[in-house]
């Protein structure tokens, strides 16, 4: 039980914070209800997938700066394919494209032994260019059922479909992997690559797989972008820095080996809702970013402090 609390303590803390912020929103704007919640989760959708992509790569001990570019490339891919192939095949192909892009990133990191941050910075430009080649201005189209699948609530009011979709997509992919030997290898490689190598983990292959997994999440992010707007957008959105922020706030240690996907995704919602609150409170948009940054530093510092206290107590 204590173990469980320790492992999920950070996520639980974030969840409490999220609920407090929701209550605060309701307090500031009494009319905030099911519709507001729906809009919030829908807007958070691409952020959530970008964060999941980043989190997997950070856990294996790397970082992928090309997340936002991969999302843009996938969003135009799915929008273009959708016109000829229809919904499901377009989605499947795009997921494959995402996996390939991620694997290329990871493969280059492993083969060239150039630091992750340099390789993926270079790939940021490569994927950006690729996206513009596929579609040089916003275009393409989406089938109707996809757009409606993230609008509105599921069965009961105040239970947004977008939230369900995020949860299902991430859980279906991540939970089985995390429980498998591959998941262990990912954590092992991120935690201590040398020890993992000596324990017989194929660390290179594990890295590539984690990057590919990140690519799949980025593809989901790209598809969700297209679903939100109904078209493909070749220019990358503000998802790179936002995903790093959410990963850090979500309790994943930069450097690898620790954390999960639950924390970062809750963190995405926290960061989004903070924005909503500040908008509702009519705060200057420029001040908003200052507040966001301050919250991040504050929360991470608090977390470190609490962990230290806990260590002393035991």
């Amino acid at each position: 039980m204590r173990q469980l609390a320790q492992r999920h303590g950070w996520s639980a803390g974030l969840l409490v914070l999220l609920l407090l912020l929701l209550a605060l929103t309701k307090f500031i704007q009494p009319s905030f209800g099911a519709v507001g919640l729906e809009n919030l989760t829908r807007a958070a959708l691409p952020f959530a997938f970008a964060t999941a992509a980043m989190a997997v790569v950070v856990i294996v001990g790397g970082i992928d700066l090309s997340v936002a570019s991969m999302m843009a490339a996938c969003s135009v891919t799915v929008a273009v394919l959708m016109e000829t192939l229809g919904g499901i095949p377009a989605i499947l192909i795009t997921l494959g494209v995402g996996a390939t892009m991620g694997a290329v990133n990871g493969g280059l990191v492993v083969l060239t032994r150039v630091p992750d941050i340099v390789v993926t910075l270079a790939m940021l430009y490569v994927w950006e260019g690729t996206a513009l080649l596929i579609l040089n201005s916003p275009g393409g189209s989406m089938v109707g059922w996809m757009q409606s699948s993230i609008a509105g609530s599921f069965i009961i009011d105040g239970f947004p479909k977008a939230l369900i979709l995020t949860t299902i997509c991430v859980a279906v992919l991540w939970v089985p992997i995390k429980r498998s030997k591959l998941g262990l290898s990912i954590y092992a490689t991120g935690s201590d690559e040398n020890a993992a190598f000596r324990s017989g983990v194929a660390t290179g292959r594990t890295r590539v797989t984690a990057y590919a997994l990140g690519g799949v999440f980025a593809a989901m992010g790209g598809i969700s972008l297209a679903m939100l707007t109904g078209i493909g957008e070749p220019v990358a959105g503000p998802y790179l820095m936002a995903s790093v922020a959410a990963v850090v706030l979500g309790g994943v240690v930069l450097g690898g080996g620790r954390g999960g996907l639950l924390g970062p995704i809750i963190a995405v919602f926290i960061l989004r809702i903070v924005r909503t609150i500040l908008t509702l409170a009519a705060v200057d948009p420029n001040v908003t970013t200052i507040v966001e940054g301050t919250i991040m530093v504050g929360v991470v510092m608090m977390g470190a402090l609490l962990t230290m206290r806990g260590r002393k107590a035991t």
Partner: protein
Amino acid sequence: MIDKKSRTELLNASSVAKNFGAVQALSDATLNVSAGQVVALMGANGAGKSTFVKILTGAIKPSGGRVLIRGKEARVGSPAAARASGLVPVYQEPSLIPDLNLAENLRLTDINADAFRIYAEALGQTNLSLRAMISDLPLATLRIIDLARALASNPDVLLLDEITAALPTDLVERVLRVVRQKADEGCGIIYISHRFTEISELCDTATVLRDGRTVGDLAIEPGVENRVIELMLGAKIDLNTQRQVTRKTKLGVLPHLSVSGLKVAPKLDDVSFDLYPGEVLGVVALEGQGQDQLFDALAGFVRPNQGEIKVKSIPRAFFHPADAIASGLTLVPGDRAEALLSERSVHENVALPFSSKICNWGPLKLRHEKARVEQAIKRLQIDTRAKGEVQRLSGGNQQKVTIGRWLATGVDTLLLFDPTRGIDVRTKRQIYPLVRELAANGSAILFYTSELQEVKLACDRAMIIFNGQVVDIIDAADADESTLIRAAYGLSGKKEVA
């Protein structure tokens, strides 16, 4: 014990060679391990032992020879492959993943938890929780876990590298008993240790490496230590530079550095000595006997757990390397890259330590500096063509810069950590006079060396550390290699050993 002929041969490594560029680390290493046999793999520093271990465990690939496990060519491309072919190593540093719990670590290496538990209990870890996080466990426990995990994997051959190093005595007993039992069940064991007592208690034979080749296989019997040491030393290579300097330790002089009861976790236990001006005190120790901690503590990198460091009779506590330097203790680290600005010129590197002395604020008085630097560089006999960037110098010349710059600056106490490692003989011969000259100028020098013959060439006295404690301090005149190596292995100085 089992009859030798009836044993099946488990591991057969023959003519294994490995070169790194032009350096031949291993030329002809051979090792045989049969079922039920515990073989000690021995060799002095630089004999190629660690290279051989890395090849056997798949961390690096050999450039010649072959390794057969159960008669089959072992595909030792990686640790995973070595494991799969039946050789399981336990390294000096535990190879457990710090951020996973014990159960997950077992799952990662496909070890059955029940089998693991049986061995862990036999090794005295009775209430070990499988949910325990590795990063929360103490080092001794981790080593036991690592060993139990390897035992539970039922290997054909088990390689144990200094398994008892970080363990308390009662655990050592248990480990030896369990390992012996595993061998009696038919496992072959390669045992690497610096401790003769353990080897004579546990091992059946010893394979001795010297200069990259196997020079002997001995059955372990009483008195075998002498033979092993002879083999490890071999014919001595004469460096042809008998020291001309005579020792002049002035009595009644205050020591520059006085250390008493120094204890630094995890390896240094209890070290006391005095270091006088004008003296070179050699430190002799096998790898990992606490010498790293001793130098780290003296240089202010770590704080000692116990004991006192007095500099010129004043007790000092160092919170930062700068404190140590300010009180006159200067470290020349074993890794040259740590001491030099590799992209800057020889001039700048020589000038660096005393820039601070000449002028604290404002521009440096370049002319004044230049004269002294020029003098020092001339003294170093460095090829001037490569002076523009230190990194273009050979390793030996770089080392001359790290030591020689203190000639220009003047230094109270110099801590030299294995300054001649990986340097050619000619440059070595230029380094010893540098060290002597520093001493003649009144510096006190602590000189750790992994090459025993250097003690006679450069030192006045030698302090031998074994297991974190000073076993002896002897005059360099009496410090022939076999005396030193016996002491370094914790054997008594005298020839007759029971």
